[in-house]
């Protein structure tokens, strides 16, 4: 099986199980939405997948390769990249150089091809006007795109976007959605963590819902939003009564 599979992933910090027996799979070309209240374990699950945490138990497979507990740079080179909720650009470097690091190291390219790939990715996410600005000096929406560009430049086939649209205005969200659809159309698959329901509902092929570290729902968007447990844990009565679908 290609794509990404998580089997019974549990991550414990002391006595606290931040992620508990979560299993899911991501098929090639798919966009998987991941929702859940704050503290549900979404970021922790991502960190387990990319290797920042070694799960207490469970297995993670990427294209049939067991990547459980593998170092993040290895996971990245195998084709899995993440954008962080807390943006961490390499501040003293230009936007171009930031993306270049992804292409050079994640994509294991030489300088020449890496520079070309960087130009392509910067064009794709629409960062041209900032390309030679220091990444510490650009506005938040541009930094969000930079995170995305750096992940894309690694050549990863699977991207994990951890609230990549947080803090954007509706107009900027539309732009971001367009870019994400373009990325998917280029044959990549994504897992998108987002609190903006319009985004999650609009782009996800499937949605999984986490609550207190456990998966409480997994299915098509319209089924998930009408799920009793999901409404109780996350959406609330009002939103479901609006029949967002």
């Amino acid at each position, binding site marked *: 099986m290609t794509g990404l599979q998580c089997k019974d992933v549990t991550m414990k910090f002391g006595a606290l199980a931040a992620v508990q027996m979560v299993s899911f799979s991501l098929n090639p070309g798919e966009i998987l939405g991941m929702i859940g209240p704050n503290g549900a374990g979404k970021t922790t699950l991502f960190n387990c997948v990319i290797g*920042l945490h070694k799960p207490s138990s469970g297995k993670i497979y990427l294209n049939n390769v067991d990547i459980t507990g593998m170092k993040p*740079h290895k996971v990245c*080179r195998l084709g899995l990249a993440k954008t962080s909720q807390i943006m961490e650009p390499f501040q003293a*470097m230009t936007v171009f150089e930031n993306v270049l690091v992804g292409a050079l*190291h994640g994509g294991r390219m030489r300088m020449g091809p890496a520079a070309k790939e960087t130009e392509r990715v910067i064009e794709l996410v629409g960062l041209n006007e900032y390309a030679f600005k220091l990444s510490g000096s650009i506005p938040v929406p541009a930094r969000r795109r930079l995170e995305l560009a750096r992940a894309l430049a690694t050549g990863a086939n699977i991207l994990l976007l951890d609230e990549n649209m947080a803090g954007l205005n509706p107009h900027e969200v539309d732009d971001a959605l367009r870019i994400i659809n373009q990325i998917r159309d280029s044959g990549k698959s994504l897992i998108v963590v987002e609190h903006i329901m319009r985004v999650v509902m609009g782009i996800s092929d499937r949605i999984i819902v986490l609550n207190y570290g456990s998966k409480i729902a997994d299915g098509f968007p319209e089924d998930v939003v009408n799920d009793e447990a999901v409404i109780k844990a996350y959406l609330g009565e009002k939103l479901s009564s609006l029949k967002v679908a």
Partner: protein
Amino acid sequence: MNFKTDKIILAVFLIISAALAFLPSFVKSEYLLRLIAVVILWIGLAGCWNMMSGYTGYIDFGPVVYFGIGSYVVAIAMTKYGIPFFPSLALAGLVSAITAFFIGIPTLRLKGAYFAIATFAFAEAMKQITLEFDRTFSVSFFQGSDGITLPISGYDNTFFFYCIFPVTFLVILAHYFIEHSKFGYGLKAIKEAETAAEISGVNTTLIKLRAYVTSAFFLGLFGAIEAYWITYITPSDVFNVQKTVQMVIMTLLGGMGTFLGPVVGAAFLTLISEALGTRFVEYYLIMIGAIIIVAILIMPSGIIGTLKIRKKLRFI
């Protein structure tokens, strides 16, 4: 990417270096030649520190340990085993690099102050080992606080100038390649945000280790050359923490993580100490202290670092 200005800076550096290579044939004063050789030695030492700490932001507070190891390897190889100078020199670099490899693996996991403390402690530990080893095991190897007297070389300052110059040249030239390579971008990414670097595919452990080992290799060479030059070494001299402090201050003055920072910082500090030291024998250290404080207050990023920011240069 436009590397044109970078190439010009490199060309200027190469031309000046080429000119400097002929210096000994023009400088007739032994004092002046010795002073120039010392300046170049310090440029090289500061460059070694910058290579590792300047680019990765890991503040190494024990670079002197590799200098000292180099000194001791050359001294022991020459006096105990009768190995000639140049093979001993190569051995010194090698032993320093290998030691750095094994020390780097555990210490480079540490961050911030903890890394600084660990490296500092290792340097002090090596000093104690060389001091107490012989007494503890009743042997005569490091010769403790008596120190080791190396064979008198009979070579003049010109010889040592030509030993130091190429090594320093390589160290500074390496900076150019660091700034324009995959390796260098990896180092700089680590300095800015290590976790982000790691998840972007940078093998942070390996890259840090490579920088650390390379830096140690050159430090070992410098230590070996200096030992042969001054012909007498003791643990408290070659492992002196003051050497570390000087490398750090020179680099900070010049600008951390810059190409010419160590060159400018080391030349500035060495020459100013010499100029003031000969005139104001009693007060010159106070004056240097004041100058360093003022310089850091005016230019927190160092001389070259500030220039780089003001002129918006990508590389200098």
